[in-house]
């Protein structure tokens, strides 16, 4: 192969002082209140979480339990960082992080309030009117008001900006027509924050707005979709001439795209992005006993190193969010690596187990469940391909 002197990476021609923009994963110091907080949570979970089989503890942020959410709310563990005047508790973002990771590690059924706590509440605090905040935030923090996300549509998955659900201005409000899909637990939520097109003539990203849609509004119809394991957590939602008042608009008209993209770091870096298979690991440890032979021994070691590393990364992003930064690329990195690991673990466990263990018992059940649901981990909240595009952009490639 001929030498190409003009080639930028040929020996001697690279500027070695020039470095690629490095992703930032500074170490985080947890607040000194954390050990006490953990102890409180663990005592609460021991009392309130009935013995649950491992396959119900896996991927537990998809498990809806209104009663459990109410109890959490009563303890002040929902809306922890929100202002007290809206029912929040003005705790730090890192304290909230600790609560999330404890709940997920224990396999608690947190789906009911998860979206409100993670995204909807923050959206209302950032963009909502005083009326919207006082109406919804206290109930969300109490664990009694649940929200869902109305983003995806049949023709708008990863290409979210091509949503076609339409809001037309009418006297005193808006009339909404169209359809959302993959909306999780829509039947059990009181509120949807929906991304819809308010100006069809505008440029793709500019004509979008978000609305607060109360799910009992006439004209909204919800149809459950059964997933491949037979669960019915996601739905499609139809809007047929749904009238909402002007006060249902979130922030200014046309700000929808900016609003949804600013949520992405919150949505992508949390402990739910690497802990979905944690229940499988705990069950594996139980079955393996104190002195496992190979290949289980090395598998346990490898998974331990991954859990530890991913937790450091996820914590670091939480620390940056707490410091007021928007680490969007780092959040994408955490989600991509976290998903890869929570998908890899079931595969590795299946490959390493003896036949009998893989067929029967609690370990076999949680393994079977995760093998089937794992493909969804790298779809929900931004597909792997979209995330890697974001990361590539962060590296100066696009």
């Amino acid at each position: 192969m001929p030498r190409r002197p003009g080639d930028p990476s040929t020996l001697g021609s690279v500027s070695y002082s020039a470095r690629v923009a490095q992703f930032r994963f500074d170490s985080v110091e947890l607040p000194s209140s954390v050990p006490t907080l953990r102890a409180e949570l663990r005592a609460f979970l021991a009392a309130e979480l009935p013995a649950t089989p491992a396959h119900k503890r896996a991927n537990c942020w998809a498990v809806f339990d209104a009663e459990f959410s109410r109890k959490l709310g009563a303890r002040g563990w929902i809306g922890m960082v929100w202002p007290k005047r809206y029912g929040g508790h003005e705790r730090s973002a890192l304290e909230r992080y600790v609560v999330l990771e404890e709940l997920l590690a224990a396999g608690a059924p947190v789906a009911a309030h998860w979206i409100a706590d993670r995204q909807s509440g923050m959206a209302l605090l950032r963009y909502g009117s005083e009326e919207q905040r006082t109406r919804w935030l206290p109930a969300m923090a109490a664990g009694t008001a649940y929200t869902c996300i109305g983003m995806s549509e049949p023709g708008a998955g990863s290409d979210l900006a091509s949503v076609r659900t339409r809001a037309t201005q009418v006297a005193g409000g808006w009339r909404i027509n169209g359809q959302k899909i993959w909306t999780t637990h829509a039947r059990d939520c009181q509120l949807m924050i929906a991304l819809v097109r308010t100006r069809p003539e505008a440029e793709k990203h500019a004509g979008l707005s978000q609305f607060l849609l109360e799910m009992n509004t006439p004209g909204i119809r919800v149809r459950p979709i059964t997933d491949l394991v037979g669960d019915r957590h996601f739905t499609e939602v139809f809007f047929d001439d749904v009238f909402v008042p002007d006060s249902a608009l979130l922030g200014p008209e046309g700000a929808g795209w900016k609003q949804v993209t600013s949520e992405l770091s919150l949505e992508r870096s949390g402990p739910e992005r690497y802990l979905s298979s944690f229940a499988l690991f705990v069950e594996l440890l139980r079955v393996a006993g104190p002195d496992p032979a190979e290949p289980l021994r090395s598998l346990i070691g490898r998974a331990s190193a991954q859990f530890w590393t991913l937790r450091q990364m996820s914590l670091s992003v939480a620390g940056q969010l707490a410091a007021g930064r928007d680490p969007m690329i780092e959040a994408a990195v955490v989600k991509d690596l976290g998903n890869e690991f929570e998908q890899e673990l079931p595969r590795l466990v299946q490959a390493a187990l003896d036949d009998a263990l893989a067929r029967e018992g609690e370990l076999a059940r949680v393994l079977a469940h995760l093998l089937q649901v794992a493909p969804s981990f790298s779809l929900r909240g931004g597909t792997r391909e979209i995330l890697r595009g974001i990361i590539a952009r962060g590296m100066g490639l696009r």
Partner: protein
Amino acid sequence: MSTSASDVRAEPRASGVGQEERALLAETVSRLFGDAFVRAAGQQERATFDAELWAQVEELGLAALLVPEAEGGAGGCFEDALAIAQELGRFAVALPLAESLLAAQTLAEAGIARPAGALTLALEVEAASQLDPERGLFTGALANVPWGAEAAGVVAVLGTGANARIALLSPAHAAECVSGANLAEEPRARLRFERARAESAPAGAGAALRLFERASLLRTGQIAGALAAALERSIAHALGRVQFGKPIGQFQAVQQLLARMGSEVAAVDCAAAAAFRAADRGDASFEIASAKLRANLAIDLCAAGAHQIHGAIGFTREQDLRLFTQRLLAWRGELGNDRFWAARLGGEVAARGAAAFWLDLTARADAQSGLRES
């Protein structure tokens, strides 16, 4: 390694040189090693002892970074050493500086005077080796000693259990020195001694393992640096190399591979930073094992990916990519390969039991947060 919630030792080792000085240190070594790298450009042989650079390293007092100020060192901590380790990897520095840092630290802890010149570590002491501490004589062999032929002194833990001692030997006194190299052509020597002079001091329990862990920690920092170098070159190449009428970095397949590499490098950076920090704060066995293993796991995708992106030119000695990829492949096998750390970690985690894993994982970080407040 089996650190439970209660026995995480919250005893700060050294306060280090401070945030600002640490940034300055990183900048200084980066410039120093970067200049040396450019100076060596065009040389086929990139693994001979760089005496000119060593003189500069000595002048700056870098080799004594981890030695307390009272003993003539810089009083630095492991977090400070991370900056040096990363730059060593980033510029494929042909010096036993990581080894010297630890050798000097170990000698200072043992109260043995530090000789002039580059030092190294011997972590593999061959069976039947004998130290006679009374007479100060050593007969035996040290295998796989990095830069063993070039170093002025070699530090080893000799003997086991209560008899373990930190010893300083001089390669110049070796009866035989068989020079070898790892697959990246970095010197690795076997030194055989016959009644050679050995200064020694009692080592304390677990000294050999602790030294091995520290060496593995430093190497993890070097791996992070070499991974970053391979990634930087891959990005630069993807942006400059035109095929089908556009830079190959504009093709999604190439972007997605680079994104994966970037994420892996970020994971190793993060793991290394956390492990170095933990090492300053007490028992870091779990963190070091996890970080080295995580670094090992990143090498497959990153080294192979860098070559894939570079095409045939990266597979030659006309291009410097191989300086990093060859080191990465060698370093993955040294100071604990995947199997070594995975089995070790797995054994410890399993022995603690299913209920302890999460408690232990969180207790480490929590103990550290308490440390800061106190």
